[in-house]
């Protein structure tokens, strides 16, 4: 590749996340076909689509769990297509999982502390943190932000589902995130917990952009400024929430489809 051209295009690019022609094959099955998306820094976008539309595969390609079969992914101008997941995370990318991916054998505090440690230095430190350790305090603040202070010493396996979902979000907020991928954060939450979730999402600092996969339209359309509709691994439509909501084709395909 022409490295000078690469660097120049990086300078000109202001996108937080830029996918160009991303395709992901599983054998003969195309889970993603020619996905091209540009998300500005601080932009909040929903990705909608029925099950099997390729939404989670899209997330997995962006975080590096799978490498795309073809296409490029840029994160704040840098080509991260072939980076291992941890290198992407260290650059400010975060994600949450549709099915909570927590450390069940550790306490809430240790879970959040690990998240803070993962994006800082001295990940291999063999010294125990002191009580006034900066990362430990950052972890405490995060625990407070997601309303888990009361259960911070409990094992994660003991938490209620809603609390685990809140912890899932806390792990993604550790360090200095620049862009977050939320994979169905409202899954299985009660109406009250959903309101708290919306509050957490809307109160994020404005420079933090995100993409949210969410089936609950009440949640999804209230916390985003743009929507991408996916269908069968392709981008089907893009627009503002009200445009997508009133689009007859979308209603036919998704909202009126009957199934989630």
């Amino acid at each position, binding site marked *: 590749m022409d490295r000078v051209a690469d660097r120049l295009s990086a300078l000109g690019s202001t996108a937080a996340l830029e996918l160009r022609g991303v395709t992901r094959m599983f054998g003969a099955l195309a889970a993603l076909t020619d996905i091209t998306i540009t998300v500005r820094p601080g932009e909040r976008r929903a990705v909608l689509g029925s099950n099997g539309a390729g939404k989670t595969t899209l997330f997995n390609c962006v*975080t*590096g*769990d799978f490498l795309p079969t073809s296409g490029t992914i840029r994160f704040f101008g840098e080509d991260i297509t072939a980076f*291992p*997941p*941890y290198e992407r*995370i*260290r650059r400010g990318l*975060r*994600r949450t*999982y549709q099915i909570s*991916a*927590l*450390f*069940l*054998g*550790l*306490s809430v505090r*240790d*879970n959040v*502390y*690990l*998240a803070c*440690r*993962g*994006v800082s230095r*001295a*990940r*291999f*430190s*063999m*010294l*125990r*943190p002191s009580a006034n350790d900066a990362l430990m305090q950052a972890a405490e603040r995060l625990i407070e932000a997601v309303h888990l202070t009361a259960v911070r*010493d*409990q*094992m994660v*396996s*003991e938490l209620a589902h809603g609390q685990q979902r809140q912890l899932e979000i806390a*792990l993604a907020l*550790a*360090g200095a995130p620049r862009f977050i991928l939320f994979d169905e954060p409202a899954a299985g939450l009660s109406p009250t917990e959903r309101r708290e979730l919306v509050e957490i999402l809307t109160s994020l600092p404005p420079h933090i952009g995100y993409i949210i996969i969410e089936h609950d339209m009440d949640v999804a359309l209230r916390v985003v400024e743009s929507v991408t509709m996916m269908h069968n691994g392709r981008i089907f439509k893009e627009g503002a929430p009200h445009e997508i909501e009133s689009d007859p084709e979308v209603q036919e395909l998704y909202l009126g489809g009957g199934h989630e």
Partner: protein
Amino acid sequence: MSLIQEAQARDGGLTSRGAAARPAAWSVTEQPWAWAVAVLLLIMPIIANGFFLIEIFGTTLILGTIALSLMFLAGYGGMVSLMQLTIAGFAGYMVAVFGVSGNANISLGWPWWLATPMALVLAVLFGTLGGALAVRTEGIYTIMITLAIGAAFYYFTNQNWAIFNGHTGINTIATPHFLGIDWRMDVAFYYLTLAVAALCYFAVLYLSRAPFGLALQGVRDNPRRMAALGFNVNAHRIAAYAFAALIAGMGGVLQVWNYRQISPGSVAVERCIDILIVAVVGGITRPVGPYIGAFIFVILRTFALDFLVKVGLDGNRFRLLIGLGFLAIVFWSSDGVIGLYERWRKRGERGEARTRPGGHGHG
């Protein structure tokens, strides 16, 4: 692997019954009787004679330390390595090769204070390389590849005469003399093993709550999420293998000083599996487990023979007893003797005061 995961799940289930979460740190201060054990171990030379002191307690501490390295990998890292005894044996061989022994054509004759660090460095290198291979696999394949390394090393020592002196091994290995003490004398050697075992035990305990140890437990619980938090999971696993190799290597150095000889029989595949049995019987969820397992193992190995002969069976069947004990433990308590004790204690607590805030969960 499922055994380990089950043990973890059981462990989680246990703690969920506790009022406050008790992370995997079983420090001396939390257990009043642990002080009694500590004092007992310190004054042991007054109570026990040479045979008991070395053959029972010294051997237990050495075996426990080697098994501790497996506990560290399996309990905190979810990686069952069957090559921990091989690493210990390798360190023992290196002490013999670099130090002084009866085989002058092989041994380089370095003083012990040079040969021992050299042996430990090489053992860590061995463990790191083996770990680098093993971390590319998961679960049962980790067991297979580490067993393969152990078996390969066994056959290599059998056939290599230039360094390992083939199946005869290396004999009359010199033991250290310093501060005017012959450290192979019973009491001195006992205190040496006790000091090394204590050092390793407290190091593992300390590390379990340090970022490195916490991250290892994170890798055990969910490697994919660890990567999504910015951790290089494989690098962490390899570092864990390196640390475990240091512990196993220290056990191996003590082992060779204890027997003053080493041969392929010391690194045979059965010995590798013994370490797994010791760790699992004791319990791989806590650092104290391997030492309890080692004690049971040594007692059985030493006395089962006499016992079997007394009841009219072949004395060589002592492995049958160990095997039955192993089956019983795994059947009733997947987290070993430690797990049995914890359940018994929890039951006692529940009997006294039924103030558990619900949440029985699974397990």
